């Protein structure tokens, strides 16, 4: 035997076995390379795969090859390619032992399949989560919408009762009622915010605003709030921060106040502090670090992620007031602003929440004089008028109708007509010369926004220009914008404060 033949014998032939069977499946011969077979045994008793030999009996093909066949023999597993070749007296089986080769293929296939399946499961999980989130948001939206009407009645009636002759005890009760109403209203607003953030319906409204004024307002509000709990409030801001920045003032205010409310809620003593520091300033962009710290109960490290989830309250045994939505709103709003909330805390020593915010700033505005607004709107008590205005009140909810009617009449500024069906409004407007319309949006038959559009499209100036104030339980910005676009002069959301509503009405009256 030559060297080459020896090598071939050593490295190739050891992996190839030849077996000859007759047409009944009886083993006639075997070279026993790796499977030890007995002549005279049936091949199909060696392994069920070999029942396939019968296919050769019916097949017109001279050769059939089976790849990657697992054969167990004498407690050993071989992964083989098997070639069956028809011969005159039987079948020749050539078995190639390719176990090593196929095992390496198996590990590649394993990794590939697992990765495909896992990514598919992640996608499915996400779809499921999105579906749940969508359902939750729709539920919350409907739920809070339905709550707004009865809450409007409660707030309005409370307001009416407050205006009557009350004794001390009754006044105390009304104060409780007012406080509860306010809490419920704030809760509804929080629920609405979180649901809008979660559903991606909240859009930021970036405008230039005075950051110093915002911080002063925060300071004014929280000095008082902290003092009520015998806490101190400290504001510290870097003088290098620009006075005028571009951002969503309302949402930034919401973030800061939510964090401060949270700090106050979990503090029994010490100082609650807000600091605003300059990280960097380049061209017309500035990065600011807002930090809110307290000396309260602190947060256990394992709970830090959970506090930003909706409806989570850290201390579940000693339940604190509030919806538990504040931090979740902060997290959502900051994500919208391409930022994120971070927290450091030591149990029993307090917590520090901080975030970095990138804002554009306007250098040319820096030296402009700041015009401070004195009052948000005209106070009814200061309003002077020597005549009464003709007002059309369109509202189908009887309780709200009654309260509004009474409150507006009490101002002594109005002659009021009442309509409770959207279909009657246009006729009333044409036949009477109203100076203002106060109209619910959700009306039977014809919606208030639709009526507004019809009035605005009217050819006669005295009709098309009548100021229209909308009232709606739908507090979504996009809806409100839609009503304004259709021609409403202002939209007041339920539950409203009677005083505010009356002031809004007065604002649009021709003096």
């Amino acid at each position: 035997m030559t060297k080459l033949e020896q090598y071939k014998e050593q490295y190739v032939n050891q992996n190839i076995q030849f077996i000859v069977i007759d047409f009944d499946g009886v083993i006639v011969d075997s070279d026993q390379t790796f499977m030890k077979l007995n002549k005279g045994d049936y091949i199909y008793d060696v392994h069920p795969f070999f029942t396939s030999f019968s296919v050769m009996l019916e097949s017109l093909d001279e050769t059939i090859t089976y790849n990657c066949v697992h054969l167990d023999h004498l407690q050993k597993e071989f992964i083989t390619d098997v070639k069956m070749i028809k011969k005159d007296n039987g079948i020749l089986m050539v078995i190639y032992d390719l176990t090593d080769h196929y095992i390496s293929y198996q590990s590649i296939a394993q990794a590939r399949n697992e990765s495909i399946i896992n990514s598919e499961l992640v996608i499915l999980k996400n779809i499921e989560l999105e579906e749940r989130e969508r359902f939750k948001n729709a539920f919350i939206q409907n739920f809070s919408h339905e709550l707004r009407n009865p809450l409007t009645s409660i707030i309005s009636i409370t307001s009416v009762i407050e205006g009557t002759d009350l004794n001390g005890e009754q006044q105390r009760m009304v104060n409780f009622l007012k406080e509860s109403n306010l809490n419920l209203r704030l809760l509804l607003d929080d629920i609405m915010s979180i649901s809008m953030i979660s559903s991606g319906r909240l859009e930021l409204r970036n405008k230039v605003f005075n950051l110093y004024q915002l911080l002063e307002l925060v300071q004014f509000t929280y000095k008082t709030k902290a003092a009520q709990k015998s806490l101190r409030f400290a504001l510290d801001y870097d003088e290098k921060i620009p006075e005028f920045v571009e951002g969503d003032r309302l949402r930034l205010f919401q973030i800061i106040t939510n964090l401060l409310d949270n700090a106050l809620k979990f503090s029994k003593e010490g100082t609650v502090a807000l600091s605003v520091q300059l990280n960097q300033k380049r061209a017309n962009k500035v990065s600011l670090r807002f930090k809110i710290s307290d000396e309260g109960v602190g947060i256990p490290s394992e709970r830090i992620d959970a506090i930003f989830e909706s409806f989570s309250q850290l201390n579940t045994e000693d339940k604190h007031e509030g919806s538990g939505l504040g931090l979740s709103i902060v997290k959502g709003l900051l994500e919208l602003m391409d930022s994120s909330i971070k927290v450091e805390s030591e149990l029993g020593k307090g917590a520090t929440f901080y975030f970095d915010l990138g804002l554009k700033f306007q250098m040319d505005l820096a030296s402009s004089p700041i015009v401070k607004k004195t009052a948000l709107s005209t106070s009814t008590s200061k309003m002077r008028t020597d005549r009464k205005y003709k007002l059309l009140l369109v509202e189908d909810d009887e309780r709200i109708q009654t309260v509004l009617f009474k409150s507006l009449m009490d101002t002594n500024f109005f002659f009021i007509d009442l309509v409770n069906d959207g279909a009657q409004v246009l006729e009333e407007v044409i036949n009477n010369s109203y100076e203002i319309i106060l109209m619910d949006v959700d009306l039977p038959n014809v919606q208030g926004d639709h009526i507004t559009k019809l009035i605005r499209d009217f050819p006669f100036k005295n009709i098309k220009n009548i100021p229209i104030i909308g009232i709606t339980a739908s507090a979504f910005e996009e809806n409100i914008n839609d009503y304004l676009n259709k021609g409403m002069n202002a939209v007041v959301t339920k539950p409203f404060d009677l005083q505010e509503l009356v002031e809004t009405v007065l604002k649009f009256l021709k003096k």
Partner: protein
Amino acid sequence: MEMQKSKKIVILGHFGVGKTSLIRRFVNDSFSDNYKVTIGVHITKKVVEINANETISLIIWDLEGTDEVQMIRNSYLLGTHGVMFVFDASRPSTFQNINEDLKIVATKAQGIPLMVVGNKIDLIILNELQTQLKTNSIETNYLTSAKTGDSVNEMFTQLASLLNDQA
């Protein structure tokens, strides 16, 4: 000694749908959550009792899963008496094109009884799956769980019985 009356069945379907687990449940009455990819083909035998006097030997070919039915090696299907096409009820990608897949299988295994099986029903809400199947005009013969054993024996026994009657 004569070869016992035997019938070859092949189990097809995408990878990871639980073909091997169904066989393991049927043959050994066991289940493992660990997924081990099958490459090529594993062949197992199980003697099934059709009635008090009759048994049949099922030669079960557990084929490597593939999302390309066209790629199944033809040699594996030679001499097959029955085909089981398995999908994963919890992964729509394994059954969304099943009617096209079944057409290809039917051309590769002409005139051979074909059973469609939705596995892993322990992971899903049955009503939702049935709605999904109905919407996509997918007909199944069995909905099974290799994990709980739900309908596994019935399915194999019914196929065995069907193949026995055909002989």
